């Protein structure tokens, strides 16, 4: 598996998109510091971008890589290598190289502006951790779609829809429900509904760490009580892990039956 991983990363590091992605974060972070020299504010702004953009890029990279490396995959399938090893190697390769772009892209400016001498380092680590999870989750989901749909255009469409669902539509439905059931105690429901969407969960986790929960009103207080506790944080991490684990599991079982 390490060999496949090595070749996938090598392959991706030669494509210019990894660099475009890296430079995007680099420029973004430097511009934010140029405009405002406050680490915490910069983290808040970047968080808002990271929770939307990393899933989108992870999704697009995931499906694109799968369809574009079809030839490479077929070459590998005729070699004495286990099927699941090939795909796990590729999956880890993309997820790691995307995470690397993210960590270096926003890491360098932060270090440059004195991250290690400030208290913001914990919030910053959380931001990176969330970025890591979102990359791994959405690349896994994208791979699932690509494996199930042989038509490239359709697969791409479904992948974008999937991202749109988690990033926008889910919130829309959630808000509509909250509005219509305004008169009932729905804080428990909100808590569960937020937990089930990895993007929402990531956003809430960072907002709470940055003490922005006051913006959320009464629901924010419920969130703070739950996720602020060690148990809540543990549950959140567990769910993020499950979001990686379950798609990978499905991917593996799907691959066993697939014809190339």
């Amino acid at each position, binding site marked *: 598996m390490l060999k496949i991983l090595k070749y996938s990363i090598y392959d991706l590091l030669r494509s210019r998109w990894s660099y475009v992605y890296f430079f995007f974060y680099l420029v973004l972070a430097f511009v934010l510091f140029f405009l405002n020299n406050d680490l915490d504010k910069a983290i808040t702004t970047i968080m808002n971008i990271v929770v939307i953009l990393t899933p989108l890029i992870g999704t697009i990279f995931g499906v694109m890589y799968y369809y574009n490396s079809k030839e*490479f995959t077929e070459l590998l399938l005729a070699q004495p290598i286990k099927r699941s090893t090939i795909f796990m190697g590729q999956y880890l390769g993309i997820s790691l190289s995307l995470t690397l772009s993210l960590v270096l892209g926003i890491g360098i400016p932060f270090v440059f502006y004195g991250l290690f001498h400030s208290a913001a380092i914990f919030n910053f680590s959380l931001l990176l951790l969330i970025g890591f999870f979102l990359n791994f989750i959405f690349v896994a989901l994208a791979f699932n779609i690509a494996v199930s749909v042989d038509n490239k255009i359709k697969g791409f469409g479904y992948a974008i829809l999937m991202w749109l669902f988690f990033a926008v539509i889910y919130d829309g439905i959630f808000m509509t429900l909250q509005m219509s059931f305004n008169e009932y105690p729905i804080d428990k429901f909100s808590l569960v509904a937020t937990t089930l969407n990895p993007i929402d969960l990531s956003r809430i986790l960072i907002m709470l760490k940055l003490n922005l929960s006051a913006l959320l009103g009464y629901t924010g207080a419920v969130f703070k009580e739950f996720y602020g506790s060690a148990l809540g944080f543990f549950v959140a991490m567990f769910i993020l892990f499950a979001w990686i684990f379950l798609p990978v599991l499905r991917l593996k079982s799907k691959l066993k039956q697939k014809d190339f």
Partner: protein
Amino acid sequence: MIQIEKLHKKFGKLTVLDGLDLTIEKGGIFAILGPNGSGKTTLIKCLLGMVVPDKGEVKLNGKSVLKQWAYRNELNYLPQIANFPTNLSVKELIAMVKNLRPKAANEQELIDLFGLNPFLKKKLGNLSGGTKQKVNLVLTFMFDSDLIILDEPTTGLDPIALIYLKELINKAKQAGKTVLITTHIMSLVDELADEIVFLLDGKIYFKGSVNALKKQTEQESLEHAIANLISKQYA
């Protein structure tokens, strides 16, 4: 060497292999023939584990290969269309395949034979179809395995490369290896094949020597004999 028992495979509603039985003994050159879409490639891919059959058994040297992977070290496969990662150079690709297989390789000899030295540093995306096929042949023949599977090996090759390819195949035969070839070029079959396996409607329609086929169909040339077999499908 190869035993295939009651192999079934459907793609959606299309039945490609319909209870196919085939036994191939060790040593010799076997030509797998059949009209377009008769399941030649599917049969080979079942043997390689790239296609998962619905029913049936595939055995190599007495051991089932279904859901296995280590056995692929004991066979060399030439895919039908030479699709390679476009941003790798020829040298990197060869190094990569060598790295993935725990086996000694004699690639330099083959690179010299096919005159690929000037192309070693070029990206695979920039090569012509014929040159890609030569690279494909190097990748296939550089390992020493008892079973060699060639899917349309002649595609895009110039006459000289074709002569070298025939030599390579004959050499493999003399070394006691088993070679499976699918092709539509009958002169190649006539020249090389010890035995013909003819696929029709997902089953083996004929298996035997070239002469036996000519006798059975009462045709002088192999081309007409095969045409005679195929025409039954159109009738």
